[in-house]
């Protein structure tokens, strides 16, 4: 397979395994590019990409912007907080105005699930979903799986546990789709109140006890508690959550094998993960960030192929 089966990257669910393999293979080449003296290639020099962020972001926005610049694309940055969205403009009007300025591709983060799919149905340019509500965050899942592949050589057969606020996490859902497609075994772990009702229908197991989950896995992906998305109390206190599900050095060292620790960021140090674990050799958190740029370069490069001029 030499081209993606999709025009947009809206979610991992829309992809096929061959698409992911192609993205990884292309990302391997871009990883070489971003580690040499001149970290730039001219591939997208006649492409303009708008980054529309209707929700706060540091890592993802910077990572996309850097990926675009490394590919020599022109970039346009938009954040909802300082825009006409505040004056009541609709999403489609905002986007159509941006497209009228001859933009070729859109990267969008939005607080509502399905926003990028909605947009893809109404405009004609490739859309990359950079996170839509509690639905999907496909590039994060791709870079997580890519980091596991880099560490272990293959994702197939690896045991991955996703720990924390699964209910409000788009990272968890995209990760589950991606890891399952690549042949990994996946479990989720956390308070039962933070588990989606039919999570096991996705083919993942639920493990309520942290230590049992850690003993089982090769990789632990620690998620943040998304307080901004929680309108009721799902657990008594952050301190209690941390006591039950926080990963600290003592727990990590008591395991019978060395596991790999991942975190999509931003980290709440002392809540889901302590500083000594986050900064330890077992954590590949900064590798994930580096791989994020290569993965996003690959996604943008492959999607840009459909833009004919």
């Amino acid at each position, binding site marked *: 397979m030499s081209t993606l089966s999709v025009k947009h990257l809206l979610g991992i669910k829309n992809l096929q395994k061959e698409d992911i393999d192609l993205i990884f293979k292309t990302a*391997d*080449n871009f990883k070489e590019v971003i580690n040499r003296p001149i970290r*730039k290639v001219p591939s997208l020099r006649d492409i303009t990409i708008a980054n529309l962020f209707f929700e706060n972001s540091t890592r993802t926005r910077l990572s996309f912007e850097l990926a675009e610049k490394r590919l020599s694309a022109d970039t346009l940055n938009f954040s909802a907080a300082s825009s006409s969205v505040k004056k009541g403009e609709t999403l489609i009007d905002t986007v159509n105005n941006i497209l009228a300025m001859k933009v070729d591709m859109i990267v969008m983060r939005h607080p509502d699930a399905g926003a990028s799919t909605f947009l893809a149905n109404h405009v004609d340019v490739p859309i990359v979903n950079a996170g839509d509500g509690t639905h999907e965050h496909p590039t994060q899942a791709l870079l997580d799986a890519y980091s596991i592949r880099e560490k272990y050589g293959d994702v197939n057969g690896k045991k991955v546990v996703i720990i924390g606020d699964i209910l409000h996490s788009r990272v968890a859902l995209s990760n589950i789709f991606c890891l399952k497609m690549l042949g990994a075994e996946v479990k989720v772990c956390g308070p039962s109140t933070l588990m989606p009702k039919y999570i096991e229908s996705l083919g993942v197991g639920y493990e309520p006890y942290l230590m049992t989950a850690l003993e089982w896995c090769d990789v632990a992906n620690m998620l943040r508690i998304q307080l901004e998305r929680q309108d009721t109390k799902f657990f008594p206190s952050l301190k209690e959550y941390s006591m039950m599900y926080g990963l600290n050095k003592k727990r990590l060292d008591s395991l019978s094998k060395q596991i790999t620790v991942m975190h999509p960021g931003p980290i709440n140090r002392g809540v889901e993960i302590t500083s000594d674990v986050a900064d330890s050799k077992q954590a590949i958190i900064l590798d994930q960030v580096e791989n994020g740029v290569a993965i996003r370069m690959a996604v943008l490069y492959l999607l*840009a192929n459909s833009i*004919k001029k």
Partner: protein
Amino acid sequence: MSKPKSILDKQQIQIIINRLCQQLVENHDDFSNTILIGLQPRGVQLCQRIKAYLKSINSKFELKIGSLDITFYRDDFRRREDPLIASSTSLDVSLEGKKVVVIDDVLYTGRSVRASLDALLDYGRPLSIELLVLIDRRLSRHVPIQPDYVGCTIDVVADERVSVEWGDNERVILKSE
């Protein structure tokens, strides 16, 4: 499509490689400041063959080789139906101040070589860049690029394709598309 016509056989290819190597020796002394770079995908094979023969001429040659992928530097991205899939680049030395020999199997329009010049400059400022090709398809250039070392020059019409096949059944053939 008509039957492919053979231009060079295995023995002829080896004779040409031997001659090209002797020409390289004339200009590059002991190769201590030289890097041979094969263009992905098919220039890499030729580069390895040249390295092997140079080694057999003088085992003291300090031969350094690399492979360069030019996919991200091409000027026909999004202008063709089939997308461009990258191969790997392997250049673990700086090109700063080095004499670079770019190696490819067939020189046709010159666009790949032009892209390779862009790509090479991202690895430093070489002292010089030369071009070595096994086959030079004369009179078909789109950009002003000429080789420094030529194995064999041929004239073919535009809808014919020159293909170098490596391996046991090594040969250069001409196919009409």
